[in-house]
């Protein structure tokens, strides 16, 4: 069974790029456009191997999603790759303290994303 990723990102252009490049790497990809959607998919859908999580999400932001993930026994071990923005050092610090596994700063290169995702979950 292919490794399953959930990408929580509200920017359609970024989402489409990520789906495309990671799809070509052989991952099975689900997407969520807001924080609530991401959480409910994690709880109900088949086991996710890696969560790619944007911080500025509607309804429930990335920090809140991360906190909920780490608090639920069934999800607490899920690797999380956070998408931050360059220069927002405080965001990164906070995500780190809350237990994010890795970070990618926007604007990122596709190479960086592929490398980071492979590091956390082989396809």
């Amino acid at each position, binding site marked *: 069974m292919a490794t399953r990723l959930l990408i929580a990102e509200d920017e359609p*252009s*970024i989402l489409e790029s990520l789906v*495309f490049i990671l799809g070509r790497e052989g991952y099975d990809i689900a997407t969520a456009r807001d924080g609530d959607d991401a959480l409910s998919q994690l709880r109900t859908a088949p086991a996710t191997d890696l969560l790619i999580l944007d911080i500025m999400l509607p309804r429930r932001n990335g920090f809140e999603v991360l906190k909920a993930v780490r608090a639920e026994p069934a999800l607490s071990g899920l690797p999380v790759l956070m998408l931050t923005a*360059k*220069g927002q050092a405080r965001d990164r610090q906070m995500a780190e303290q809350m237990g994010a596994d890795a970070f990618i700063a*926007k604007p*990122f290169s*596709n190479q960086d994303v592929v490398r980071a995702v492979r590091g956390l979950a082989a396809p």
Partner: protein
Amino acid sequence: METGFGLKIREKRKALGLTQAELAKQVGISTSYFNLIERGKRSIGGALLIRIARALDLDPATLDDAADRRLMNEVTELAGEPLLAALGLQAATVPALVGRHPGWAQALALLHRECRDRGEVIAALSDRLRQDPFLSDIVHRMLTTIAGIRSTAEILESVDDLDAGHSRRFRSTLVSESTRLSDAAQALADFLDRAEAPKQAITPAEEVDDFILASNAHFPTLEEGADRLRRRIGADQAGGAVKLTTVLESGDVAAAPRQRRGRGAPQPAPEDVTDPALEEGAPAPSRRFALACRVVARELAEPIRALIDAAPSLASPAARTRAEGVLASYAAAALLFPYEPFREDAERLRYDIGLMRRKYLASVEQICQRYVSLRRPGAEGVPFGMLRADPAGNLSKPFPLPRLPMPRHGSACSLWAVYRAFQTPGAIVRQLAETPSGDRVLFVAQTVGKGVDSFAVPPRHLSIALVCDVQFADRVVYGDGLDLSPRARADAVGVSCRVCPRERCPHRVADPIVPA
């Protein structure tokens, strides 16, 4: 501390080949007193200053002791800047610099002020960059859009076998995201265009403070103008108080009863009542004073304008507007509390603020402010300094004494009675204090509540303090019963921690920047 003032006298005297005894005799004082003046142990002004200046063929203005002391204080602050600490500058050599090279000393003080003010502007701007919600939002929007563009462009560039459908969608994404990026960049440029210019290097309030200091808090043309106005109204004759009140209430000088010429009851003033002090039920002294301000702003507009035009220190329009208000207040005080009778009453009542308030229907602050302005050459009152503090420690309306400078920034020494007065609201607090240079001063402070007594709008509490050299304390009721002898215990105060050499003071809140 030796002063540049004494040094100037000594150098000029020596240049003229005169001995201390000769010059002392010429100006009619003892040699020992003259010696004290030259060594900066006595502060002088008025007629004696003018006599000494004449004997030495100097412009009395160049012997302005107070101005020198202010300058010395500023240069001393500079000597303690951490940046300059390695130079080992000695505070003790400052008087010599100010005395011998006043121009250079002024240049240093100006540059220091400018430098520090720039530092504050930079701090304010960088705070703004870090904290402005619009900026952080727009930067985030731009980074997000760029992330989309970059990722899409990389796909188009690196994937050779892209199917037609994906290729079309990615190219259209590039166009739409570039448009969003341009919009965001434009919004940022607009924001930066709109951003207000950095604040004045010296604040308008400081410009006005400097102007008041340079004028020694006394404005002869406004005193004369106010006296003329009182005569026009007939306020200086029998029944004058009624006439003055009529004029104030109507806002019309021609409405004084004597000059009404059958025009009937005075009409209400045409101006909109926007000043809260003018509202029905405002405290009587505030209302009366606000009314007087309105009358003098119109009747004495010319001398007020002339003073402002002649003041080089009032550079910014904001400072000039502010100075206009301050001078109107001064003229209003001169109208309501005419110089000579007020000074005589003050001397007779020994500057008792409460008794003077009752006599002149005035507030604590109005009386104190008027005391400070009693500096007519030949008819001076007790030379008072004044300051006002809010509960957060911020100072306003500072008027220093020659031997007691007041900090330009931040708060003063926390031991000053102006702060202690907050512990006993409304009560008079007296304090015999000694400065690090050994000068003794008498502080008198009292808190007052300003504003409407309403639960919704909390009143503003301010502490108002007068301060005078201890040598004048016997003319002031507040010195009564205090041991003012040189050996009496006095509170060891400073000016502010940064310039205070009392290293072991338990009240210290900041490190000294001045080597003791």
